[in-house]
């Protein structure tokens, strides 16, 4: 750690001298091409949230469809506001409290960036909103692990606290120019679009929350089937489309690196989906639609940290490996018997870890040579793997500990788990007073 921190301090200085204008440059001309693509990406990432709502909503039982959809939609409300008030500042401000998170008074209510144009040629408003969409979808992913049995009120408090205490610090460490994981090693921990920040943190937190809450009533003896697979497939499709904003938009430009990320994303999703249904066909005899959707997600999750640095063949291999390992993780879950209802950990946690670690074997040679130059001589795949493992480990431990702490304290004020009556009646009736299909008549 000592050696690394010395080195990273030096790199920090280097980095600052090179890019100090990145986040507050005035007087830079707007690059309309880049801005147009970033606006599109911002919308695409937002589209993933209703996509996730449909995906999760279709997978639960009829009585919980609206409550589950609301888990995603409420995040669009709560986190959007929090992001403007403190989130952007905590994520992309300068280090405070020893680098735990960032802070910049200008970013409070975004009041200081009204006319700010970033050196990438896009208005800072666009960048802040683009990043805000990531902050929205991340806590919504956790809902999949605790579906069908979580109190709506407690969930609202939970995602607000989680976003402030877990997401913002992690985002700061990995993506802010002075974040410690951004500057670790030769060229930082590679997390192009959110493998550690989004998927590993959400997956691990989901696992902790699921373990804390315990299983749904009747699980695993009672068969719990999806209420509407059509919604699931629509949702998975929207997620795939939206992921182009997520990954290709994360280049914060409209050019070569955007195209590279876009191609890696497409092939990883396809490879993941095909792999998953092949495994199913051999293992269970039938290729399911849900399997195809799961494979799409596993591939996309795994390529998320890697999209900017791997070539298409790397994307394909990551997609294949992610599906194999996530499939095994879900089999293991069934054996262990814990209730990660919609496999938030099995897909996002495991897939994210697979991608963040294994991407080092497919990194573009040009990236590696730049890293070697930055390290002052040589930089091997194994050096980078160490950095990746460190970043993953930090994300896993931090997310797990903080999530446990948040739920433990929150549970003292607002009971986190639904009562048995609420669970039997369903989230829709208990918390929203509505029905997903037909307001008055169950038929």
């Amino acid at each position, binding site marked *: 750690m000592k050696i690394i921190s010395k080195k990273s301090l030096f790199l920090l200085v280097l980095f600052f001298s090179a890019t100090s204008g990145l986040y507050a440059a005035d007087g830079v001309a707007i690059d309309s091409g880049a801005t147009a693509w970033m606006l599109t990406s911002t919308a695409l990432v937002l589209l993933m949230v209703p996509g996730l709502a449909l995906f999760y909503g279709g997978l639960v039982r009829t009585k919980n469809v609206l409550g589950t959809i609301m888990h995603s939609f409420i995040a669009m409300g709560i986190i959007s506001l929090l992001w403007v008030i403190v989130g952007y500042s905590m994520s992309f401000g300068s280090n405070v409290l020893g680098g735990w998170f960032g802070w910049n008074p200008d970013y409070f209510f975004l009041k200081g960036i009204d006319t700010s144009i970033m050196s990438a040629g896009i208005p800072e408003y666009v960048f802040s909103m683009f990043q805000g969409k990531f902050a929205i979808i991340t806590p919504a992913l956790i809902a999949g692990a605790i579906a069908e049995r979580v109190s709506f009120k407690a969930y609202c408090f939970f995602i607000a606290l989680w976003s402030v205490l877990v997401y913002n610090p992690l985002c700061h460490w990995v993506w802010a120019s002075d974040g410690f994981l951004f500057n670790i090693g030769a060229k930082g921990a590679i997390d192009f679009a959110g493998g550690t920040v989004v998927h590993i943190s959400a997956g691990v937190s989901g696992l902790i929350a699921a373990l804390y809450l315990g299983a749904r009533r009747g699980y695993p003896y009672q068969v719990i089937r999806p209420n509407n697979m059509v919604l699931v497939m629509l949702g998975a499709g929207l997620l795939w489309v939206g992921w182009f904003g997520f990954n290709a938009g994360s280049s914060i430009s409209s050019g070569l690196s955007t195209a590279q990320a876009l191609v890696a994303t497409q092939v990883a999703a396809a490879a993941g989906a095909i792999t998953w249904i092949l495994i199913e066909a051999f293992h269970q005899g039938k290729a399911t639609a849900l399997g195809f959707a799961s494979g799409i997600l596993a591939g996309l999750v795994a390529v998320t940290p890697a999209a900017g640095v791997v070539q298409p063949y790397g994307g394909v291999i990551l997609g294949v490996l992610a599906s194999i390992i996530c499939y095994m993780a879900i089999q293991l879950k069934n054996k262990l018997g814990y209730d990660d209802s919609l496999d938030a950990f099995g897909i996002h946690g495991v897939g994210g870890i697979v991608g963040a670690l294994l991407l080092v074997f497919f990194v573009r040679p040009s990236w590696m040579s730049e890293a070697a130059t930055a390290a002052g001589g040589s930089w091997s795949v194994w050096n980078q793997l160490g950095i990746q493992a460190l970043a993953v480990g930090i994300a896993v431990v931090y997310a797990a500990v903080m999530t446990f702490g948040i739920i433990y304290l929150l549970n003292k004020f607002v009971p986190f788990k639904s009562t048995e009556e609420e669970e*039997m009646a369903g989230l829709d009736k208990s918390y929203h*007073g509505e029905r997903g299909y037909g307001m008055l008549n169950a038929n």
Partner: protein
Amino acid sequence: MKLITAIIRERQLDKVREALIEADIKRITVSRVSGHGQQRVEEMYRGQIIVPDLIPKVKIEIAVNEEFVKITVDTILLAARTNGPEGSVGDGKIFITPLEECIRIRTGERGGSAI
């Protein structure tokens, strides 16, 4: 042979099913129905109090031989009641009707053994 038809609250379905399975009564038919009863529900929707005209319920149909009638009825009574042992309006009803014949399609066998 008797046909036992129980109209119960939707949310009690899991409990009733579990209790029936516990009592070794495993052959049941369940459907979603709606209707009028003594129960009058007022729901708040978009700030307005509305009284739904048809209340959704679940109907369970069980064909049993005479010696199973009592245990089936007792099990449903216990599991379908809400608000403790005194129950509450809207818990539902049980109808018992004589069953003239029962035929298993696979074998064509008739009567009590086909149930």
